[in-house]
């Protein structure tokens, strides 16, 4: 089964898009799941284009396709086709399919290996992405450095040969460094990430390996390892062209955060998103070479925006993921899933506190703990455990000993 935008009148497409805009999160995730199963995506991408920001927050489980794997390292650079402009950072989404098709054609036997490796896999399986990417990304970067404009490029993107060259080189520069970046992200998540010296050494080596300006690489780095912002802007240790690209890369990253400040519904993922945003803002506001007084109103505004979104997400998740399903989970003997949801909330709260709202979080957690402890369903020990996760062991022991 395929979906062809060409066979769909523009008015019908708009009608469908409007209908999608009013669907619930769950319905949208299901629709995207159906579209992901289509053999040819055709107009599917056009159909869901207006929902991209919402999908980025929802992060529905998506199959790991060749195109998705290829462009995972470039994800922080993706912008809607009409928004992309020559001379500015970013990779238009409309470029993905034609470029991926051409890379597939050029890679030969490696494509079969990659396909076999990712068959049945999911895009959120970080270990699989890292493993398959380690095989694909360097080879794809080498191919992109020398192949010409793909067939159907103009029709798919509305862009010319010069734009193609810019996009291909920008993508290649990120792909060629992607294995290191993803390994560093993983190590960072374990608390064993690169220290300042290692980051500085890598940054110098990486930027010198590519002839084009390193803006794209820097923007990706800011999204993946935002603590690097301090190094990016510490001009004395960086080559002049790196320093010159730092400002556009930071602006690009801030644009993206402003466009989509709401963390997704998965609290653990949301906490990680907020942590990265906070690390970037802290780096930009810390005294030192990366601090720019002119940028302060913008970072302060973004901090407030993120704080509000984080509180709203926390309140919604507490109600939807812990309090609402409490009775049913207790009756079904599924308190473990509730405990995991409560842990996710604590992760989000710990990240959110860095933006402010301490009293807000304390109040909400205390209220929820009281509600669960005093007249909640489940055994006393089960309720005490939930209370412990939400507000700590003192309250749990008080409940237990009452």
């Amino acid at each position: 089964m395929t979906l062809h935008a060409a066979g769909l009148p523009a008015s019908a497409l708009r009608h469908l898009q409007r209908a999608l805009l009013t669907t619930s999160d769950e319905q949208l995730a299901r629709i995207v799941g159906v579209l992901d199963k289509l053999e040819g995506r055709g107009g599917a991408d056009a159909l869901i284009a207006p929902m991209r920001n919402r999908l980025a927050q929802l992060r529905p489980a998506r199959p790991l396709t060749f195109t998705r794997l290829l462009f995972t390292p470039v994800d922080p650079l993706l912008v809607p086709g009409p928004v992309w402009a020559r001379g500015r950072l970013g990779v238009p989404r409309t470029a993905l399919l034609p470029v991926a098709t051409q890379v597939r054609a050029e890679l030969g036997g490696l494509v079969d290996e990659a396909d076999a490796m990712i068959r049945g896999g999911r895009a959120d399986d970080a270990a699989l992405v890292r493993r398959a990417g380690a095989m694909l990304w360097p080879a794809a970067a080498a191919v992109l450095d020398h192949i010409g404009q793909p067939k159907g490029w103009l029709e798919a993107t509305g862009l010319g040969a010069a734009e193609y060259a810019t996009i291909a080189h920008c993508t290649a520069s990120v792909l060629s460094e992607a294995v290191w970046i993803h390994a560093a992200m993983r190590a960072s998540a374990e608390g064993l990430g690169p220290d300042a010296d290692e980051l500085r050494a890598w940054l110098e080596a990486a930027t010198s390996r590519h002839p084009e300006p390193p803006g794209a690489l820097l923007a990706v780095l800011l999204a993946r390892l935002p603590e690097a912002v301090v190094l990016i802007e510490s001009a004395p240790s960086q080559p002049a062209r790196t320093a010159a690209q730092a400002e556009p890369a930071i602006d690009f990253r801030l644009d993206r955060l402003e466009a989509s400040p709401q963390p997704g519904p998965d609290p653990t993922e949301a906490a990680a998103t907020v942590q990265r945003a906070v690390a970037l803002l802290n780096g930009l506001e810390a005294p030192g070479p990366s601090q720019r007084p002119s940028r302060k109103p913008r970072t302060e505004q973004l901090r407030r925006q993120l704080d509000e979104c984080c509180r709203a997400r926390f309140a919604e998740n507490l109600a939807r993921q812990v309090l609402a399903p409490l009775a049913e989970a207790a009756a079904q003997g599924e308190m473990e899933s509730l405990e995991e949801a409560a842990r996710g909330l604590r992760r989000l709260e710990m990240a959110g506190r860095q933006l402010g709202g301490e009293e807000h979080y304390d109040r909400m957690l205390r209220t929820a703990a009281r509600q669960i402890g005093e007249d909640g369903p489940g055994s006393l020990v089960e309720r005490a455990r939930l209370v412990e996760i939400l507000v700590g062991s003192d309250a749990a022991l008080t409940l237990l000993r009452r």
Partner: protein
Amino acid sequence: MFIEAYQPKTFRERGVSAPFTTPLLTGARLRAAPARAGHVLEVIIPNPAGRRGVYIVPWSESGDLCRPTMHDARLTETLVGRLDLSMLCPAIVRQAGWEVAAEGHAGRGGATAAQRVLRDNAVRFAMMSTRLYSVLAEHETDAAPDPAAWERLTALLADIHLPEGAAARVPVLIDAVGALAVALPDWATAQSGPAATAAQMVGTAARLVHHGATYLLRIAVAQIDQPATLLRDWFVDPVGVELALSRTEWLLDGWERLVLLWQVALPGPAVTVLEMAALLPVWPDEAEVWLELPAGTAAHLARRPVPPSRFWTDPTITVDQIARNERLRALVT
């Protein structure tokens, strides 16, 4: 009290590894306080900075360093309320841990595992008890065993060597430590940096403990295989026999957690081996006597450098640390 170069003389002084779930108490040990100390139970906490050294504090003051979880509070309440703490040994702490976990204080997974362990132990106990009573009956004796001591002996033997080739807990753990001694250096060959160093270090320590425990187990099994002699000796000197038989258990104490840590390896193997290196049980001087090692061996082992571990000292991830520790409880066999 912080002691940087911690070198206990005896295994009892080293304390008993407790299955704590509080992050800061991971790898901590409990021991009876000295007489007239003003408190009954002490906790020996590995340096939270992930470097050499331990804190030794009265359990009642542990709240100054951390907020013990509900599970840990119940565990110590159970121990303090029930026991003559001078008898504190690995078997007693383990039993209390299972009982508390079976009540659900370490989550549903921990409760299920603990209930299964308690059931299995009852079966092993019954097997060993039947055997001991039959030996007792064959060798007519007027002596009536003290019920509590008899129960302790039966449980101890059931952990070490069961009749008819049934799997006892101690040999299974020795095998697991042996597997760890192979797995960690294997893993380290593809790594570099502090994690590789830590993996080699823990692998070497596992190999030493595996050798030592195998040696002590062989001696204990030889005794158990002569049950009439064993019982005769036990009637004369119950404490001495128990102590001799429990040497393997004392040497292995703390290694079950290391085995489980590697099994779970959260949030990843590199950070796990660094944590394991920081939690390696020290060898008290007494181990030299038990294993016929040259004097100074234990102190030499204690001097190994510990690579610093950063991840688990991060206070923002307490819930994850507790969840990981509870998951270890769910894996206990």
